[in-house]
């Protein structure tokens, strides 16, 4: 999410030195603490130390994929950046879990349930590798705990008991939301115990009971592709997209801005020579423009600057949601930035009942989306699925990463001759149909003996 320059600047003022120190074995003052988790690549790649070294070759940027198939032939591929950081700061994870319980009935029989779920996550780290590693090692445990808290109600909602309960979507969305918050708190608590971790974005997909829940905090992106069509399953949380939230927060808590930044927007860029003149402005809650006489405090820097990929909060960070960054400060002014960042995910729900064997969820870090749009991604995925007999989805993931990485001439170029992505790139390509099949099997198993075969799911109201 950072351009190279920016990450160098932030690295200089924030834990990047210490993070590199952990890897290179060099100790900087203040960083005698150990990292919480050793650096490595995602568990399902099973890379040895040698292979981790080989995977971090900035000149070759090898595209790594799992040597053993993931569940349902899910595809994954990744490659390292072109040199902006020593190591690949993305992380990825998948887990399969079961929510299960056995309750003795009054007549002595035992009532059991077992609800399987599958979880995928990708985390794009910045200013160090620590936060993304923590998320990859810990977030699924927290989500599991939250789901266990809700599992009795989830089961009731599923098993046609006509008992009053909250809509299942809201239970699962709530579990994800509260887990994201707890993950961020955990990183905060770890600050005094472990080496500075930096921050990371988080994009999580949860398949449970015939639905897909995508929780996103950051600028990684998920889309559903079907043939050459696609539909977004997340929005990017960048300073530009979160302009309203951040400016309103700044306006309500002006102390967060020090004497350096302003929540107001002005037409033109007022300069000290314009003092006393009339300028057009709007505050954080205004839609339209109004007039005022230019005062010295109007010359402060806007809390959000830049456009698109280059938009920044306090001139420093280009992503507004995720985990960590608890000690991040503005580049020059040293004001804390964390109050403007949020760990709260947006959760989108997708019913799997219409899934077919061409339908996939593509999850990628911004290294992919910087140079590939939804159309292009859907196109590459559709071609791979049609071209390969075997290993369709890992081939699709490899082709997506291969396209976005491009090839090295003087610099990394796409095959169309435009600049390729120099960032770390990580991509999951997850077929949807197997999770619908799994759900139908669960329905059969649970309701085989009951007269009505209609899915209890039909009357579950969707969130929103």
């Amino acid at each position, binding site marked *: 999410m950072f351009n190279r320059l920016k990450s160098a600047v932030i690295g200089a003022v924030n834990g990047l030195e210490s993070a590199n120190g952990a890897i290179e074995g060099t100790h900087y003052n203040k960083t005698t603490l150990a990292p919480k988790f050793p650096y490595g690549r995602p568990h399902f790649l099973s890379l040895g130390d*040698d292979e981790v070294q080989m995977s971090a070759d900035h000149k*070759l940027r*090898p*595209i790594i994929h799992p040597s053993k198939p993931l569940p349902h032939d899910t595809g994954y591929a990744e490659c390292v950046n072109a040199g902006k950081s020593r190591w690949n700061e993305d992380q990825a994870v998948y887990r399969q879990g079961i929510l299960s319980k056995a309750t003795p009935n009054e007549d002595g029989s035992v009532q059991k349930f077992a609800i399987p779920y599958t979880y995928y996550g990708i985390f794009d780290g910045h200013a160090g590798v620590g936060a993304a590693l923590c998320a990859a090692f810990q977030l699924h445990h927290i989500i599991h705990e939250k789901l266990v808290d809700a599992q009795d109600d989830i089961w009731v909602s599923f098993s046609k008991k006509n008992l009053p309960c909250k809509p299942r979507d809201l239970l699962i969305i709530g579990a994800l939301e509260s887990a994201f918050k707890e993950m961020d708190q955990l990183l905060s608590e770890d600050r005094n115990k472990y080496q500075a971790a930096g921050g990371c974005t988080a994009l999580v997909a949860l398949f449970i009971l015939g639905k897909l829940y995508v929780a996103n905090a950051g600028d990684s992106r998920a889309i559903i592709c079907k043939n050459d069509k696609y539909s977004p399953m997340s929005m990017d949380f960048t300073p530009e997209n979160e302009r309203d939230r951040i400016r309103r927060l700044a306006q309500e808590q002006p102390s967060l801005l020090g004497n350096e930044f302003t929540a107001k927007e002005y037409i033109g860029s007022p300069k000290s020579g314009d003092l006393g003149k009339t300028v057009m402005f709007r505050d954080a809650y205004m839609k339209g423009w109004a007039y005022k006489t230019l005062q010295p405090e109007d010359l402060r820097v806007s809390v959000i600057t830049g456009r698109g990929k280059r938009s920044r909060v306090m001139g420093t960070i280009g992503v507004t949601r995720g985990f960590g960054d608890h000690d991040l400060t503005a580049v020059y002014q040293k004001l804390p930035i964390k109050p403007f960042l949020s760990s709260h995910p947006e959760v989108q729900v997708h019913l799997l009942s219409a899934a077919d064997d061409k339908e996939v969820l593509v999850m990628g870090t911004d290294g992919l989306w910087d140079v590939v749009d939804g159309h292009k991604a859907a196109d590459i995925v559709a071609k791979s699925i049609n071209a390969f007999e075997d*290993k369709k989805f890992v*081939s699709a993931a*490899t082709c997506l990463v291969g396209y976005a990485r491009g*090839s090295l001439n003087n610099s990394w170029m796409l095959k169309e001759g435009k600049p390729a992505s120099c960032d770390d790139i990580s991509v999951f390509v997850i077929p949807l149909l197997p999770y619908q099949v799994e759900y139908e099997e669960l329905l059969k198993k649970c309701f085989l003996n009951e007269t009505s075969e209609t899915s209890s799911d039909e009357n579950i109201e969707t969130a929103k």
Partner: protein
Amino acid sequence: MSYAYLFKYIIIGDTGVGKSCLLLQFTDKRFQPVHDLTIGVEFGARMITIDSKQIKLQIWDTAGQEAFRSITRSYYRGAAGALLVYDITRRETFNHLTTWLDDARQHSNSNMVIMLIGNKSDLESRREVKQEEGAAFAREHGLVFMETSAKTAANVEEAFINTAKEIYEKIQEGVFDINNEANGIKIGPQHSPTNPSLPGAGGSGGSQGSSCC
């Protein structure tokens, strides 16, 4: 484990000629009759000894499928050795050698040692390419040649080790610039020219732990 040199290899050739099986036989000393199709690239590594020096081979096993050609091409760069493999029971894999060779010469450094390998020598009854043909092709293009069997392990060690010997000789002759990592050769930590004293010699400075990786 420390090494005097690290050589980077790449294995190329048509799909199904046995590239991954050769690597598996060399690194794990086992044969897997049904090997999954390789996608993109897979890695292997093994330590060998030449001239009583420890040499680490870092091997990049590439996908033979046309669909991955543009990706695998990017891995030629920075390889010191290449194993160009065909299947002696499938004539077309031999016919494609010139294409592979052109690709390799175009995308690699000019000193790269190329070993031509006719694999599946255990399947004599199904042979379509005579050994002499392989040898003639190798002579014509300045390659080293061997027939191997990833199944019986015949000549597999030799193929990898002889390639390393060629590279080692080129280093001795000064053909390879060993300080340029783009040549696919790395000097082990204790042999670094900036620290020529023998390991454990307790030289001045004492900054022994400055490994490059």
